[in-house]
């Protein structure tokens, strides 16, 4: 039975199913708030679940001449990556001082898998728009990865450890990371990189519906598209949780107060994401590239230096 425990953690709670259902709910929040900002009414609460259900029912179209193996497995790779990453982040917080599967570096690498899935899927589609999307997705990864790594270092430098539990314990003892100057800058940089990872405006360059008709997703339909949508919904939950774990004192679900506090922290981040998303136009790929390797990396370096100085 011991072996089934991690499987349960992964599939039901707090992994795949829980994160997926909750993630889809927050996707609805996102759509509703965006609609209100744009003076629309917005969809009802069950819309995102209905979307997934409808997509599952629709036929799957595979572009002729594409590589079927890569085309079909690509979305599954992304889903597997985000499920395990999400499971790890939840479990270290719930389980307190027990690691599950891996440490900080493992999660960072697992979070690359959804992007990799988009790239493989786009490249395998045989569609020019998709290949442009794949190239852009990879270029974006190239751009935001350096600042992303650097700000995660700030937590590592402070705690001198790559274990999640050390980072959480440190924050319980010494106050949250974000309370320091370096922590604030690091959180801002993390937030910007998160937008790019989520492929949200102003960084939705690889998808860019209005110019490359959804980019990497152009050829996807039916159940495969549903899996991509689900992956993105899970990322909308997992990435802010990663930010909370690293800089905002972690997740406490042992009491009602803790859960409420966590919900508050998450909703603040989500609101910020939605605000940025619905008020900014899309950047060009070269602008985004320069933006990330210029000012954002600069900020990240400043935060690393401040951390080393102990500020």
């Amino acid at each position, binding site marked *: 039975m011991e072996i089934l425990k*991690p*499987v349960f953690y*992964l*599939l039901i709670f707090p992994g*795949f199913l829980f994160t997926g259902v909750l993630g889809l709910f927050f996707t609805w929040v996102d759509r509703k708030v965006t609609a209100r900002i744009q003076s629309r009414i917005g969809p009802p609460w069950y819309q995102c679940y209905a979307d997934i259900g409808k997509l599952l*029912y629709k*036929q*799957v*179209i*595979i*572009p*002729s001449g594409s*590589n079927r*193996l*890569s085309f079909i497995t690509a979305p*599954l790779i992304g*889903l*597997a990556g985000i*499920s*395990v990453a999400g499971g790890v982040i939840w479990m270290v917080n719930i389980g307190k001082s027990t690691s599950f*599967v*891996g*440490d*900080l*570096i*493992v999660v*960072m690498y697992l979070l*690359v*898998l959804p992007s*990799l899935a988009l790239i493989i899927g786009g*490249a395998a589609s*045989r*569609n*020019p728009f998709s*290949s442009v999307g794949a*190239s*852009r997705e*990879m*270029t974006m*990864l*190239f751009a935001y*990865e*350096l600042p992303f*790594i650097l700000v995660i*270092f700030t937590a590592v*430098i402070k705690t*001198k450890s*790559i*274990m999640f539990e050390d980072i959480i314990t440190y924050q319980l003892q010494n106050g949250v990371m974000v309370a320091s100057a370096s922590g604030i800058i690091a959180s801002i940089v993390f937030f910007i990189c998160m937008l790019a990872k989520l492929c949200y405006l102003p960084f939705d360059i690889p998808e860019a519906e209005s110019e490359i*008709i959804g980019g990497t997703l152009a*050829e996807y339909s*039916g*159940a*495969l598209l*549903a899996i991509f949508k*689900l992956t993105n919904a899970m990322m909308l939950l997992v990435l802010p949780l990663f930010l909370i774990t690293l800089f905002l004192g972690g997740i406490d679900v042992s009491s009602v107060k803790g859960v409420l506090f966590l919900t508050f922290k998450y909703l603040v981040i989500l609101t910020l994401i939605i605000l940025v998303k619905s008020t900014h136009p899309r950047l060009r790929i*070269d602008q985004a590239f320069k933006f990330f*390797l210029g000012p954002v990396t600069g900020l990240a370096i400043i935060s*690393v230096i401040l951390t*080393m100085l102990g500020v």
Partner: protein
Amino acid sequence: MNISPLLLVIIPLVSAPLAWILKRGLREWFSVAVTLCVLILSAFLLPGITREPLHYDLFNITDNIIITVNLDLLAMVIITLISFSGFLATLYSTRYMTQSRSLGRYYFLLLLFIGAMNGTVLSGDLFSMFVLWEVMTVAAFFLVIFDNAVDSIKAGIKYFVMSEMGALFMLIAIIAIYFQEGTADMATLASRGITVSSTFGHILLLFFLLGTGVKAGIIPIHTWLPDAHPAAPSPVSALLSGVMIKVGIYLMIRIFCHIFFPALSWQFILCAVGSASIIIGVMMAIKQIDAKRLLAYHSVSQIGYIVLGIGTGVSVGLAGGLFHLINHALFKGLLFLSIGAVIHRIRSRSLSDYGGLARTMPITFITCSIAALSISGVPPFNGFVSKWMIYQGLVQRFTMDGSPFTVVWLAAAMFGSALTLASFVKLIYATFLTVPEKAHDVKEVSAAMWIPMVIMAGLCITFGVLAWQVPLKFFVLPAVPGVSFSGYWQPGLATLLLIIAFVAGGIIFVAGRLKKVVVSTPFVGGEEFETEMGISPEGFYNTVKNIEIFKAIYHQAEKKRFDIYHTSKNIGVNICNALSDIHTGVLPRYIVWVLAGLAILLLWISFVGF
């Protein structure tokens, strides 16, 4: 059973001339049998060495110069790697090389090369090591120029000149150390634990770094590597990149971790060189269009990780470096063999000639993808585990000294990993997925070629998923004492969970009416679908290439400004040209020179005296 480790050297060296004179058809399988024999021998030796290292004197040349055999676990790991890759490369050659001429010479050189590499690692003293090192260099040189094309010969000469420069430095260092310590036996030297404090010691270490570094291909003396690797036949490239550069690393570990107890500054230099290799190697790889050249630049980059691991000066870092060395031999060998399979079919090295091969060459596609994921460090493949250990080494180093440079090295290593992924995405896209300009009517390669590829791919997965149970337990951790981990990684569980989540996604897919799968032409907004649409391999990273600073650097790199060989050649040629201007062939001018010389001489004598 008591097997002499010397057989590992003697068998290939003795059978090398035989392979030359044997008949065509027979010699291929003879060579395969010889390399298989070496592989089996090393497999037999391995368990014994794990329990007890071997070290004995072979014979005395003089009282002080003794030829010794030294086989500890570190050497054994490298030898197993050489024998394993050697066997697979030879098996692969039987099919790959069928269209070449003078194959007798090829198999002669191949066996000589493998034997010399084994010998270099087996040598317990610096002198015999150096002799076999040179045999290895010469064999590799002739293998690189095997095609006899102008490019190959140029690349071969470049490789030879650079290697020999390094070897000369190393010879000076070896002689110096012999005269200072009175012995060249590595084990004796290691037990004395020479500390580096004087200028002399630093120069000695610098010379050793140059000698081993040229072979290993570290920045800035890596420049032979991107020329020689593509020029050589693919199985030879797999050996050059898979194991020969590892022999350089092996010696580096011996010198920097066993013989000397270096000052902190040398660890700093190793880390700096390693990080620079990682970033510069991969940045150069990103813009390559020649598939093998791209892989060669990745060798520079991955060697950077190994050197960085050694430079951390922490056990877990060194163990990570050693593990990465093993992994690199696997996935880089596999990449060269996979790309070799493509070259074998398409007869071109340019990425723009490939495309859409995933349908026609599915085995090559899958093995190449596994290798690409491994080298990019995607969990749960083997490259991830070793990189993860090197990062831990750096973090532990940071907790000890708190140096800001350590953060820089760590950032370089992790960012380099993302760039590696970027580069291989391009390779996979251009070779296997994109729409080709003209469709290729090719078949999958024959079994003698794909079996080695599948074996290596299987090992890439095994060494990743069962990292704790197999490679770390048997090879790495026994070879590096005192490793303490500060991270947490359960590859088995992670793989299980990844597969379960993958299957769960698959169930969703199946639940969504699998029967209704429809094949339709790609949607291009109503336009006529043409193959030129989309993005070419050259244009995949145009955004990156067009950023001003990268553009300027790439422009300089194209002019070979950073190539130490090219630059020093230019300087040499310029000096010679200036000197040859004196020799105009005009007699009166020569007389002026003679008189001027005489005048200076007379002045010297009258003012300074004799």
